[in-house]
C-alpha cells in the first residue's frame, strides 16, 4: 500500500519487526514515507503516536484474535476511524462480529475455501490427478 502511494503507519511491540518491513524494498521504510512505532496496540498512547486520530483506515492484524477484536472496537468507537478491519482466526467469532457490524477477515475461512476448491478442482473423479491417497491426506 506504501508503494501505491498511501501513507502507511505500522505499530508493533517488537522493534525488530521494522527490518521485516524493508524486505524487498529498494529504499528504507521511512525514506518511502512509511512510519513505524514501537508499542502495544492496547496502549492508547501508542495508538495516538502511530497516528490513529487521523487514520482513514485501521487494520488490526496481530497474532491474537482477542487483541484484534478489542483494538478494532477501540478504533471504531473511540477514534471513529471510518474503515476498521480485524483479522480473526476463529471462524465462529469472525462470523458473529461480522454480524455485529465489524469488518472482519478470517484467514481460516479463506484457507478452508481455497483448500476445498483445490481438492475439487485438482482431483476430479476419473482424471489423472493426484492419487486417492494424497487427496484424502489433504
Amino acid at each position, binding site marked *: 500500500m506504501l508503494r501505491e502511494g498511501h501513507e502507511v503507519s505500522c505499530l508493533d511491540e517488537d522493534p525488530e519487526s521494522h527490518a521485516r518491513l524493508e524486505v524487498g524494498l529498494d529504499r528504507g521504510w521511512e525514506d518511502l514515507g512509511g512510519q513505524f512505532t514501537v508499542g502495544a496496540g*492496547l496502549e492508547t498512547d501508542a495508538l495516538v503516536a502511530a497516528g490513529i486520530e487521523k487514520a482513514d483506515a485501521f487494520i488490526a492484524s496481530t497474532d491474537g484474535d*482477542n*487483541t484484534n477484536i*478489542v483494538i478494532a*472496537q*477501540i478504533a471504531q*468507537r473511540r477514534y471513529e476511524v471510518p474503515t476498521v478491519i480485524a483479522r480473526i482466526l*476463529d471462524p*465462529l467469532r469472525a462470523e*458473529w462480529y461480522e454480524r455485529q457490524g465489524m469488518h472482519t477477515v478470517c484467514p481460516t475461512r479463506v484457507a478452508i475455501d481455497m483448500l476445498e476448491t483445490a481438492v475439487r478442482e485438482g482431483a476430479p473423479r476419473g482424471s489423472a490427478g493426484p492419487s486417492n491417497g494424497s487427496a484424502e491426506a489433504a
Partner: protein
Amino acid sequence: MYIIVIGAGKVGWNLARELLEKDHEVTVIESSRRRYLTVEQELEHNVSYGDASELWVLERAGIQRADMVIAVTGDDEDNMLICQVAKEKYDVERIIARVNNPRNKPHFDLLGIKPSVSATDLILRLLEHEVPEYGLVHLLDLQEEQLEIIEMLLGKDCGVTGRRVGDLQMPEGSLLISVLRQGKGFVPGPDTVLEVGDEVLAVLDPGHEEQLKALFGPGDGSGGNGVSGGG
C-alpha cells in the same frame, strides 16, 4: 442461580468454592490442562476444560441458561470479550469482569463491560478507608443512576464540628445520610451536632465533591486539604 466462572486461578477457584457453598450451580472454565486437572480433583464436574474465548466452549458449559458470567482470567482482552459475547450474543443478564491492568479499565467501559473489578482499585480504596489522612472516601459510584456515595472523617480542624446539621449549607444535590460515632451509626436529624471523629456518609450528584470538600474542610469551611478527594 447458574453462574459460569472463567479462569480457575486463585481468584476463580476460591470464588467457585464460595459460590458452591452458597448453593449456586457453578461451572468453572479453565484453559490450561494442568491447572484444570488440579482444580478438578476438588471441584469435580463443576470445572470444565477449554478456552472460553471459543463460543462452542461457552455453549458446552450451558451459557444459554446462565444467570451470570464472571470472567477472572489473567488476560484483560479475554475477560472483556468473554463478557461482551456473554452479554450481547447469549443475553446473560449479569456479567462481572476482572481488570488486571488498571490502564485497561477505559477499554472495559468503552465496550460496555460493567461492572469491572480491579484488585488495584480495591486495595487503593481500602487504603483510603484505613488511612485517615484521606478524609473523603469514594464508597460507591452508581454510574447509571448518576449518584455517588462518599464518606468523610471529621478531623480536629474540620469546619463543621460543633455545628447543627440543620445549620449546614449543604450544596444542592447532596444529602447527609448517616453518621458513624464511636462505632455506632445513626441517621442525623437537623438537631444532630457533628463531633470530631464522626464518620459521615453523604449521597450526592456527581461533581459536587469539591463543594462538599470546601464545606467539610478545615477551619471556617473555606476549603483546604483537611478533606481530600478519593476514588
